[in-house]
């Protein structure tokens, strides 16, 4: 099996189990508060790591390239409360423009 299929199948089965766990197993019960607090904080912690990873890493190296200009443009778009799709398009356009200018 190729790596791509391995990832697709394991992520799919894992996600199906995660999404179904509450409705199928827990029913009306709730998570212990501390467990719930940790699980809730996973999303902000990981999303911040993904922002860092996707903007300044290239393999195992830290690099500053045109992606940072795109991220800066995204911050401005978010600050003026642009819709999420506009934010992403602005970031891509700013990065493409920076590369065209040889930055």
């Amino acid at each position, binding site marked *: 099996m190729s790596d791509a299929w391995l990832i697709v199948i394991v992520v799919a089965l894992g996600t199906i189990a995660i999404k179904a766990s509450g409705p199928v197993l827990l029913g009306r019960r709730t998570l212990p508060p501390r467990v719930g607090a940790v699980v809730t904080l996973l999303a*902000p*912690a990981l999303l911040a790591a993904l922002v860092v990873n996707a*903007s*300044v890493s290239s393999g195992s190296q830290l690099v500053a390239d045109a992606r940072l200009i*795109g991220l800066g443009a995204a911050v401005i778009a978010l600050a003026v409360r642009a819709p999420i799709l506009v934010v*992403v398009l602005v*970031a*891509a356009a*700013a990065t493409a423009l*920076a590369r065209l200018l040889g930055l």
Partner: protein
Amino acid sequence: MGDHAAQPMSDTPSLSTLPFRTGATTALPLAAVVGLFGVSFGVLAVSGGGVGAVPAIVMSASTFAGSAQFAAASVIAAGGQPIAAIAAALLLNARYIPIGVSVARFLPGGPLRRLVLAQLVIDESWAIAAKGEGEFDGQRLIGAGVVLWVAWVAGTVAGVLGGEALGDPTALGLDAAFPALFLALLIPQLRSRSAVVAAVLGGAIALALTPFTPPGVPIIAAAAAALIGLTRR
């Protein structure tokens, strides 16, 4: 099976169909956005180092969680190991444990039906179904979830088919779409002080580890930042 007989026939349409349609129509504007993200996921999947056309479509249909799919794709694109891509995606999806618990008692049917319906829960359908005070409308959630699922899968198919025609994704700045998307998804998560602390810590861990570990590992390690939740009273 037996759950249909529990409701009087005459009441069934007004009890279930209307909230289902309300959920579906409320989700339509979001479906346009979700569909376009599906297109970008499809485009990235068929670009160099992506997961490929058919796996991408199967992933969108079965996983139905955009941020996790993009996370797995970005780890693969960076040359990370499969285990790192899997761990990053599943840790990101761990938020569906408490989200699933919150809607559990509003979903109809037996275990198998609930297992299937639970797959329609994503951030957007969950938000549409929220009535406040911890109450949710199960039918509205299902209506929104179905519309968003169709948009996500159709968008992925369109992106896969059109992606090869688009050419080099870096020339179009599509690699910068990743951090912008993750940032846009992060902002609404920052509703509490502990969420902000977890985000700052998670970002710092990823930054500090990148030069010293294989790709993907810094993202998984950043999950440790969520442990500050243990200190909360």
